[in-house]
């Protein structure tokens, strides 16, 4: 129970910091909406449904990257990560709290982006939406870990996409597959498996990222 309480306290703190600073979510919302608007005018009318679903995933992944790039900024200011690492809580709780907060931001951005996608492009069925939600979990779980690694580097803006994008490819394959394939459920299963494996790996390895 104390682990859950620690995670919730850390998530609540991240949401409160964002509510006050408004550094991340407005940028994510603006980015995803403007990207969809640009795509709307950029894609030829006869490009087909599949191209539109592909572009939705481009928008989702880069919006997530925007959020992840700022995920550990509050901890870098005033060296707070050292304070959290010194606290006697399980260090994986720090990662899980950050993952949940980033997931909330991404879901909030998608609450606007998905209706906009339906308005500009194609309808989304339940399988496609489930694919988006499952991929969100994977992106945030892996991304929070990689973002913490990148945050320790001087070249973090360059490093983060280099680390996150290759590991996002299976999520994009699964997400697009869930939207366009006749056997979308198989892709959902693949996404569940990806989320489970990478969430456990990230959870177990976070301690080694933030300590020597």
């Amino acid at each position, binding site marked *: 129970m104390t682990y859950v309480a620690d995670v919730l*306290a850390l998530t609540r703190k991240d949401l409160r910091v964002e509510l006050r600073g408004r550094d991340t979510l407005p940028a994510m919302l603006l980015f995803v909406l403007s990207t969809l608007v640009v795509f709307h005018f950029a894609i030829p009318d006869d490009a087909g449904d599949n191209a539109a679903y592909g572009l939705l995933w481009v928008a989702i992944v880069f919006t997530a990257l925007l959020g992840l790039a700022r995920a550990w900024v509050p901890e870098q200011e005033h060296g707070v990560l050292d304070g959290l690492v010194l606290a006697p809580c399980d260090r994986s709780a720090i990662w899980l709290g950050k993952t949940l907060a980033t997931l909330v931001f991404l879901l909030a951005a998608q609450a606007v982006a998905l209706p906009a996608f339906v308005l500009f492009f194609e309808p989304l069925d339940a399988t496609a939406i489930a694919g988006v939600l499952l991929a969100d979990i994977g992106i945030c779980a892996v991304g929070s870990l990689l973002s913490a690694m990148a945050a320790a580097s001087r070249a973090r803006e360059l490093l983060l996409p280099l680390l996150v994008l290759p590991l996002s490819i299976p999520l994009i394959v699964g997400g697009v597959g869930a939207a366009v394939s006749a056997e979308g459920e198989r892709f959902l299963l693949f996404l569940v498996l990806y989320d489970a494996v990478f969430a456990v790996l990230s959870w177990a390895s976070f301690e080694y990222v933030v300590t020597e």
Partner: protein
Amino acid sequence: MIRGRGVEKRYGRKRVLHGIDISVPRGGFAVVTGPNGSGKTTLLRLLAGLALPTRGDLLVDADRARIGYLAHEPLVYRELTAVENLDLYGRLYRIPERRERIGMLLERFSLWDARAERVATYSRGMTQRLALCRTLLHEPDLLVLDEPYSALDEDGAALLDRELEALAGHQTVVVATHDAERVAALQSSRLALA
């Protein structure tokens, strides 16, 4: 409490600490001095458990939960208030009756009136006082203080003098400072880094 022999720390090729021997008994008050770049902060990070020595033996006989570390940075969130910051740490350190403890520390460090203001609006001195509250919040057995007088005005420095006087002999304290004379009366040992 603290025993180190031949402690060395390297970052890549750069050797920051070399052959450091340190011994501080339980309840001891050690003062670490040295010019800028001599490795004071690195040594304190090793003692706090935030870094590991590259070579040598270092034994710090204190659980992570019982160490209070005051760093150069205050280790608090700029967008949160003093109470919110201390409440978060209080939860993570599982402090019983944390609200009373937080209130008492904020009163003692003259931050009570500013408790609901965001840290981003604090002066450097107020932020340092808050950092001291955070360091003392869980009543640590080992206090590791890196330049604790930095940014404090005369009132704040006098307050810290009184705190350290009260702690000396009861808790193990390691202080890195350029103003060693200020704590000379309390010190039980001194380590001068070159």
